[in-house]
């Protein structure tokens, strides 16, 4: 699998749910601006924050290349919420508040095992929330414990792809995920096309006004 951005002729481009004229030319400009100016919120709960927020922003990897080094300490000005670390019961309402305080359009990346599924603390822990998607809608999952900075960059590219292909200013609260255009390693399109399309079409439209739990995410 090549890099997301290096693959313009993706055979599954129309796999984004919706009409072919989903993206207009105004959308292209807007999405270009939005995808290239993802200012993250300075927020990290545990180990992943070191790798994803700090080491990725540091000189050796340099998040600034993506234009994402303007880390905003205030959620009002941030576009990107990187959930870097475990979310526990006590943090749950605060995470929800942080998300609500962010101005639209806002994007969420869950990095690391803890934020995706609870990681080491899925079982036998009395406080750990099993995945940040139980609290707020998550756009991109970056697995790793913690993910390398490069893996986070790949997640960022994945998110950029979603913004470029899946958003329109006509429907600002709707987000469409080009599920099939980013596949995990070792997975071939043919292998999962049939079983995925029917499962994921319904799931890929995230209505942000809706409680994520109701969607069965």
């Amino acid at each position, binding site marked *: 699998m090549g890099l997301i951005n290096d693959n313009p002729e993706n055979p599954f481009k129309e796999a984004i749910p919706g009409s072919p004229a989903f993206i207009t030319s105004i959308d292209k400009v807007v999405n270009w601006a939005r995808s290239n100016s993802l200012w993250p919120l300075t927020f990290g709960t545990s180990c992943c924050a070191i790798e994803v927020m700090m080491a990725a922003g540091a000189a050796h990897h340099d998040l600034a290349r993506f234009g994402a080094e303007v880390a905003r300490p205030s959620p009002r000005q941030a576009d990107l919420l990187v959930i870097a670390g475990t979310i526990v*019961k*006590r943090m749950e309402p605060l995470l929800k508040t942080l998300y609500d305080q962010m101005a639209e359009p806002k994007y969420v990346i869950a990095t690391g095992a803890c934020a995706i599924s609870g990681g080491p603390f*899925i*079982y*036998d*822990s*009395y*406080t750990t929330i*099993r995945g940040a998607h139980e609290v707020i809608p998550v756009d991109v999952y970056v697995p790793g414990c913690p993910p390398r900075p490069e893996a986070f960059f790949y997640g960022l590219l994945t998110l950029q792809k979603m913004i470029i292909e899946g958003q329109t200013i006509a429907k600002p609260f709707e987000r469409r995920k080009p599920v099939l255009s980013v596949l995990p390693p070792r997975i071939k399109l043919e292998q999962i096309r049939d079983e995925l399309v029917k499962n994921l079409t319904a799931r890929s439209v995230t209505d942000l006004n809706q409680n994520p739990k109701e969607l069965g995410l």
Partner: protein
Amino acid sequence: MSQTIESFKLLLENAFSEPLTYLEASQLLTIKVQENQLFATLKTLKETLKFDALIDHAGVDWPNENKIELIYILFSTHHNQQIMVSADIDRNQPTPPSVSSLWAIAEWQEREVFDLLGVTYKNHPDLRRLFLEDNWVGSPLRKDYKDDFILERPW
């Protein structure tokens, strides 16, 4: 640099009027004390034997013996010696004395034990839950703690 264990034991026994009970099944030198002797023993250890640091304080739940074991790990920078004090308290009404007047750090270490094991210390200045919300029910580190939220490992 430091005395041997034997000479230190001698020093220890001289400081107390009553004979000490040692706990054998322990790696550190461990004194076993009754609940009513706990504060006095720790006070002597601090003031006479210069155990100036309360390194750690924890509790162990023993449900089938109906008791909670309190562990105090003390360190003396003067003697470069470490000692563990173990005290068994009643599990249903755990009301040991607070030692926060001896070591300030005990205030928060005891709050942690209160939070996770439900031990209510007497004379504690500010006994609140430390890690969990105030409306939390139960003490998670007790062995019979039940919580629907906890998932058991499936295999």
